[in-house]
């Protein structure tokens, strides 16, 4: 059983087929890259997996259970956490409070427990939040408002918030967008260390170097269809991929 199984997934928007009969999987502990030209359906596929968009047909299974049709918060609580393409932190909350939302989302705290509960649960939420902050190196800025962080730091904040959920699968939507080369390289190393610790990661990316450099397997989408699914070296040499990416006349 794979961690995430995507079977014949299709999504139509009116006449447009955004994702067309895609089948792939993510194994536990794997680092998978999802690439493709603009409009290939990468983000739509992410939204289908995480429950933000409903499937037209097909099936998605996570840890063996069907998750298509489930609400995003249910899927998230099962152990899949995601980041967004256009960087979505909670701007008017402190760095610590931002990350604590991931902890409390995964662990839960009822209104009754917030008022009358014993302190154990709150302390566990605090501990988990600190752990995630230290992991991404933002512990020193814990009291800063998220809006005051630099762009690069906000990227790490978004990842910390996802890590605070202690997910089994982390899906990152264009994590390197807007970063310069050295920041991208640093982020790539960081994602690698997450994966080395056993976390399965799936990432959508435009930056070919990032994907080819760190992923163990690369899935290529073009016009909603899967055109390649193999190791980076194989994908790099695949004529169908070259055609989709670079055009034919070379």
């Amino acid at each position, binding site marked *: 059983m794979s961690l995430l199984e995507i079977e014949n997934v299709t999504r139509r928007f009116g006449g447009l087929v955004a994702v067309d009969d895609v089948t792939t999987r993510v194994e536990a502990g794997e680092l998978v890259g999802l690439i493709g030209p603009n409009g290939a359906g990468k983000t739509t596929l992410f939204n289908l997996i995480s429950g933000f968009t409903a499937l037209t047909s097909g099936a998605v299974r996570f840890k063996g259970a069907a998750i298509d049709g489930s609400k995003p918060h249910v899927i998230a609580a099962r152990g899949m*956490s995601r980041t967004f393409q256009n960087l979505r932190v909670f701007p008017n909350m402190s760095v*610590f409070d931002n990350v604590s*939302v991931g902890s*409390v989302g*995964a662990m839960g705290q009822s*209104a009754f427990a*917030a008022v009358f509960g014993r302190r154990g649960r709150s302390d566990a939420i605090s501990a988990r939040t600190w752990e995630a902050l230290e992991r991404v190196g933002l512990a*020193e800025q814990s009291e800063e408002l998220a809006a005051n962080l630099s762009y690069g730091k906000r990227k790490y904040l978004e990842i910390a918030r996802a890590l605070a959920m202690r997910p089994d699968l982390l899906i990152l939507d264009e994590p390197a967008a807007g970063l310069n080369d050295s920041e991208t390289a640093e982020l790539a190393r960081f994602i690698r260390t997450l994966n080395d610790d056993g976390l399965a990661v799936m990432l959508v990316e435009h930056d070919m170097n990032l994907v080819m450099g760190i992923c163990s397997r690369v899935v290529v989408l073009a016009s909603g269809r899967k055109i390649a699914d193999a190791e980076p070296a194989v994908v790099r040499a695949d004529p169908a991929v070259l055609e989709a990416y670079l055009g034919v006349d070379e």
Partner: protein
Amino acid sequence: MSEITRKGWVVPVLLLVLVFAVAPFTLAQFGKGYFFQVANLVLIFSLLAVSLHLVTGVAGLLHLGHAAFYGIGAYVAALMGTDLKLGFLWGLPAAGLVAALFALVVALPTMRLVSIYFAVATLAIGQMINTVLLNWVAVTKGPNGVMLFSGIKLFGFAVKGPLAVYFVVAVVVVASIWVLHRLSHSYYGNALRSLREDDQCADAMGIDTVRLKIEVFTLSAFFAGLAGALWAYTTGYVSPGDFNFSNSILILAMVVVGGLGSLPGAIVGAVLLILLPEVLRGLGDLRNVMVGLVMFVSILFLPKGLFGEVSALAFVRRNLGVKWGAAPSEREVGWR
């Protein structure tokens, strides 16, 4: 594992001394019922502002009908006291529960609405409830209102005199605000704040956003209902005019002037907007212009409020929070 130390008993003790010793002692020096009436009004509106703070300031839902739930509480307490001869100890919880029940029924269909559409829905509901209070003469006595002469009786003892009534109001308000403080200054409160910031993103963090919105709306109405019962028993008279749209806006103004998202700010706003008209009584009708001017100037120069959210959270953390041993540096972070 890191150590956590409980700290910060000074500020709560000071606040309790202020409410239960300094304020009543000072008021008693004047020896007039009028000052106690004003003090009760300050307490009741503090509770209304803090309960609205949870919905509008923390969870970010613009609620334009809060006074209607306050009115439901007042009418439930008053009608139980007169028609059913069930006194304060029955009327108070019943007022909260009935207001919460109404809010739950209203919340189920409206919580999927976003921003301005939600605001208009709450406006409409507030108007509907107010119209019912005004026109359902058989039950609510219509525009004449309900007189409640029985006064507060606790376990067979009549609470007599303005000082004793003040203490009853203060106990209910302080206990309620303590609960609301725990809700807004906790990880539950952080989840509510995430709804305000970006509810789709909160969804991706495993938070059931719709359920949370329904919960917070219902809880807030419960406390508005309690405030209504206190109003009914302290004034002895309820009429529809006390719970109309302009009262909803007054409560909202307290929350905004004090600072959206700030619990201490909501109290500051309530104290200011209740005391100011009383202090300026000598100016006659001009006082309303002055009150408007103060609101206008404060929003112009302090758009984040007199006691804004960032400084309020830092204040609460420092004085009521915990010191978390694992924190790099000696800063206080984390809710208990």
